[in-house]
């Protein structure tokens, strides 16, 4: 009774997925049914042949023609069916991946942080694969299996209903055994998925942390972690196996018992004369035909369960609300910024508290403060990577949320603290936007002093840099990042600790270049070095998410003891820098 109500809900899930491929699936089912009905016919042809022979009316020719034709058609149908099911499943997988990627690409950075990239990777690979398996195997198998079971049962009933009932009685026995075992297996599968997740985590961490593992020689420890997880995976594998080890012999034994019943009862009927020897042979053949589909349905129910679970996970991503892209304002920015009572928190943890300041277009401000003061988070807010919980950020007097995303991001450049290098040429890495022209690219490359080191690369700017940028040094990567931001010809440039990895001489040269080549730029620079920013229009001191002080260098030296302390901590070196 409960079954239908559950089924009504589920089709909208995994079966609903197939709606766009109706034609293809229909064709698939058609070929499968055609192939299978011919398959049912084959034993009958043989049975008739034997009967004809025992009645002395056997003729070679019609038998060979009938049989040969059927076999050939089966070949053609199954071949088409296989090709279609390959196309259908790959098409479903491809489009599912596209939908996912499309959805992901429209999401905000905050969403990505929340949904955890490694889980999305699983969604796009393993989960899609299990749905692919469902399309390529489950659909055809289920349709054909049910068809064969019903067809064979009907044929058996028409031959001899009493004997047929004995055979058909075996089906529920097998079905129940399957149901019971698979129910247990499914919970084990779920648990073993968790173990596999842990196993993958150890593998991922050991690959991404390879350098550290080498430095502290913790290979053995990682191996032990792995052994532990792998051992658990083995345990689950063995428990699942134990269940299957019980299942398969039971099914085979039941089938054998049915065969025995046919022999004992059927033998009696043949002796009675109520059954022909040919029908008797056909019964035996149909029995083997009948057992296999039952097995298939059992195994496919498992495939469906797994695909349903995968589809639920994928739907979770697909149905997550779209990033609220409300902004429509497209205009050329002047570059004035104002922060009005901005607060930000991650869950319970406050990151920024009531921050207010304003920056005139074309001016330069610096944000300094200790580790974990919220400096980077403030830049992320300005970049619209995250949204404030309270308060508003305005650029040219308009809330930044009002701007159309693309045109906004094309006018605001961001140099991230950690360098992100894509696996493509240096030039493509720098010209990482549509708006980059040859002229703006050239200007950015000159400003960031990139030529100096790219000239030494084997293929200059066309050299492909590797994924984690290992062929470049930390400072070189940072300069590449700056060039990437400058190539946009931005009105606002956000620098996150840009100078940390660049030597002082290069740093001075680059900043002077920026000043000269981009005179109207509004510059917001998170930095540790006061010496480089004393001449800035404004310096903001952040500590533990609070704005402690703001003003010019001179003002802060007078009114902020915290600032003075930071200044003093850099004093000795600043002296050298000032002297030079």
């Amino acid at each position: 009774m409960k079954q239908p109500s559950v089924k009504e809900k589920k089709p909208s899930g995994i079966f609903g997925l197939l709606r766009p491929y109706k034609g293809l699936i229909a064709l698939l089912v058609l070929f499968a049914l055609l192939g299978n009905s011919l398959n049912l016919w084959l034993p009958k042809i043989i049975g008739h042949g034997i009967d004809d022979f025992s009645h002395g009316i056997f003729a070679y020719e019609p038998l060979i023609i009938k049989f040969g034709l059927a076999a050939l058609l089966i070949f053609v149908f199954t071949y088409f069916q296989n090709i279609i099911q390959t196309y259908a499943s790959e098409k479903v997988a491809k489009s599912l991946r596209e939908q996912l990627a499309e959805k992901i690409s429209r999401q905000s950075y905050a969403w990505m942080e929340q949904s955890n990239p490694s889980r999305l990777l699983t969604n796009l690979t393993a989960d899609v694969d299990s749905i692919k398996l469902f399309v390529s195997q489950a659909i055809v198998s289920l349709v054909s299996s049910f068809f064969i079971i019903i067809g064979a049962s009907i044929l058996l009933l028409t031959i001899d209903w009493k004997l047929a009932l004995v055979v058909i009685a075996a089906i529920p026995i097998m079905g129940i055994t399957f149901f019971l075992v698979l129910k247990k297996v499914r919970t084990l599968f779920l648990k073993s998925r968790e173990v596999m997740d842990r196993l993958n985590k150890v593998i991922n961490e050991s690959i991404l942390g390879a350098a550290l593992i080498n430095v502290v020689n913790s290979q053995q420890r990682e191996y032990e972690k792995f052994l532990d997880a792998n051992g658990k995976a083995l345990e689950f594998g063995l428990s699942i196996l134990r269940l299957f080890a019980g299942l398969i012999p039971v099914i085979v034994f039941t089938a054998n018992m049915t065969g025995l019943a046919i022999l004992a009862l059927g033998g009696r009927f043949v002796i009675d004369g109520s059954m022909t020897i040919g029908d008797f042979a056909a019964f035996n053949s149909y029995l083997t035909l009948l057992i296999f589909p039952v097995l298939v349905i059992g195994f496919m129910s498992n495939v469906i369960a797994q695909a349903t679970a995968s589809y639920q996970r994928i739907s979770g991503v697909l149905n997550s609300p779209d990033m609220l892209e409300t902004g429509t304002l497209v205009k050329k920015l002047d570059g004035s910024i104002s922060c009005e009572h901005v607060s930000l928190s991650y869950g319970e943890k406050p990151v920024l508290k009531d921050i207010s300041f304003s920056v005139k277009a074309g001016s330069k401000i610096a944000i300094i403060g200790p580790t974990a003061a919220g400096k980077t988070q403030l830049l992320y807010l300005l970049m619209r990577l995250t949204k404030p919980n309270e308060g508003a950020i305005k650029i040219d007097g308009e809330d930044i949320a009002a701007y159309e995303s693309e045109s906004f991001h094309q006018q605001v450049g961001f140099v991230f603290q950690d360098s992100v290098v894509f696996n493509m040429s240096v030039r493509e890495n720098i010209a990482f936007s549509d708006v980059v022209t040859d002229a703006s690219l050239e200007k950015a490359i000159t400003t960031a002093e990139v030529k100096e080191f790219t000239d030494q690369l084997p293929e200059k700017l066309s050299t492909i840099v590797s994924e984690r940028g290992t062929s470049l040094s930390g400072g070189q990567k940072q300069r590449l990042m700056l060039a990437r931001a400058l190539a946009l010809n931005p009105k606002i440039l956000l620098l996150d600790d840009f100078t940390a990895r660049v030597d002082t001489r290069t740093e001075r040269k680059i900043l002077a270049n920026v000043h000269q080549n981009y005179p109207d730029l509004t510059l917001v620079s998170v930095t540790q070095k006061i010496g480089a920013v004393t001449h800035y229009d404004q310096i903001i001191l952040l500590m533990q998410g609070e704005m402690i002080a703001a003003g010019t260098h001179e003002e802060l030296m007078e009114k902020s003891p915290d600032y003075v302390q930071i200044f003093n901590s850099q004093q000795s070196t600043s002296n050298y820098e000032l002297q030079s």
Partner: protein
Amino acid sequence: MNYNLNKPVTGKGVSNYAAFKGLLQLISHEKSKLAVALLATIGNSGLNLLGPLLTAYVIDTYVMHKQYHGVLVYSAVLLVVYLAAFGINYLQTKLMGTVGQRTLYTLRNAVFHKLQQLPVAFFNQNKAGDLISRVNSDTDKLNQFFSQSLMQFVGSIISMTGAGIFLLTLNIKLGALALLPALLSLIFTRLLSPWVKKKNAANLKTVGGLSAEIQESLSNFKVVVAFGRRDYFMQRFNEANQKNYTSATAMGIANNVFLPFYSLMSSVAQLLILVYGVHLISTGSFTIGLLVSYIAYANYFYSPLRQLAALWANFQTAMAGWERISEILVLENNMGTIDDHTRQEAAPLLEMKQVHFGYDEGREILHNINLSLEKGKTYALVGPTGGGKTTTASLIARLYDPVKGRVLLDGKDIRSFDPAERTRRIGFILQDPILFTGTVRENILYGNEEYENYTNDQLEEVIRTANLEKLLGLFEKGLETQVQSAGEGVSLGQKQLIAFMRAVLRKPDLLILDEATANIDTVTEQLLSEILDNLPATTTRVIIAHRLNTIENADEIFFVNDGAVTNAGSFHQVVDQLMHGNRH
């Protein structure tokens, strides 16, 4: 050495046979279990084949002669046979499955163990996404084969062999005729297998590529957003997705070529048996009963053969996966330990002698480096970005071996030190700090066996003695503060603090800091330099930094530029050089 898996040196695929042999070697210790499982499989198949034989006998002797009593007697015999088969079947399934599961376990261990043995260069030359795909999804391809197909595979072959023997012994001519289509299938398989395997290998490669692409785009998502390049992500992804689709479809079509052909051959065999069988009966050398059971035997032969056709594709996928895995397994770490019994009194702690180095062959990065580090002194490596500072430090810590020249620790070749000994003595704080998801405690004790079993109180005491308590104080929940390996929950500066504490607690003789404090504010940095000053007097420090204050107290400063290391003299001279660019 070339560790790039996508540019293999040989460039030639391995044959099925060789690949399978390699796999068998891996499970050689399971031999005895495998033998028992094989016996059980033979027994099971034999018993199952006995069924039709007995049935045929019953039909011929009793049913045709209307002796129902005989039918009943033999039914009882059959029942016993089937019961025995039931037991043996259980044994077979369990044993074969166990072997499969244990093999997978061994295989995963072997791959992971190898990963742990390979040097840093291996990880730099390969994409993380591709490696993850090899270890996870390619082993899973083998898993599917082992846990689902292997048993059927062996079982099918044995049933087929048994059925084949029955077919031939019952009537040699009819048997030969019945097996003729099977022979055709075999030839067909042999001809097509290389092609099918190639398609499978091509597909696994695109799967690796897709996974690498996703990994790269997802982990760099903030840049994609900030530069308004969502289309870039889509474009790169679509390209990889399309490639995967094309190769997967080609693989699917290749994999599906066997089954329809095998089915056709199976039908042809039935027809041949029927036609020739009828002919034999009419000449009196065969009986109807035998013909019925003969057709059943043909089924017993051909339905496992059909299963084999389906499994064969599975087998090809598994072998292609195995090949990708063995590409990792055959890699040898070229950074082994060598013997060096030279004893040198009063040798400096570390010395580099005429060291040359390059990451790729032919492109030298460091030229003829000579430097010597004394016990207890502080050294600084300065110079413009890309000059070779990190590379020099990596050679000191033996992340790489020099192409030419030697690195000596205590006057002995650094290659002669056991890794545990070497890493205990040389600490290295990497430029990009690495965190594992977990607590601060787990992270600062990572790879540190000494304090592993300390309670938090004991550990805090140790931290106090090492002057690290103020740094720990910067984490709101102290040792129990949760941190993530990725994401913005922890700032870069905080990650660097953790890496710093991790290295100091190991109490190395030589501590290398590679811009290890670059993103830490200057006030906290003063704290760090106090901690460094208070390290035991015997500790040698090597500091790479751009900020001058961090190298102010160095005893000696080396200038690293254009792959050459020169002694820069005093701090003032260095400042002068840095400020005015008088580097040459």
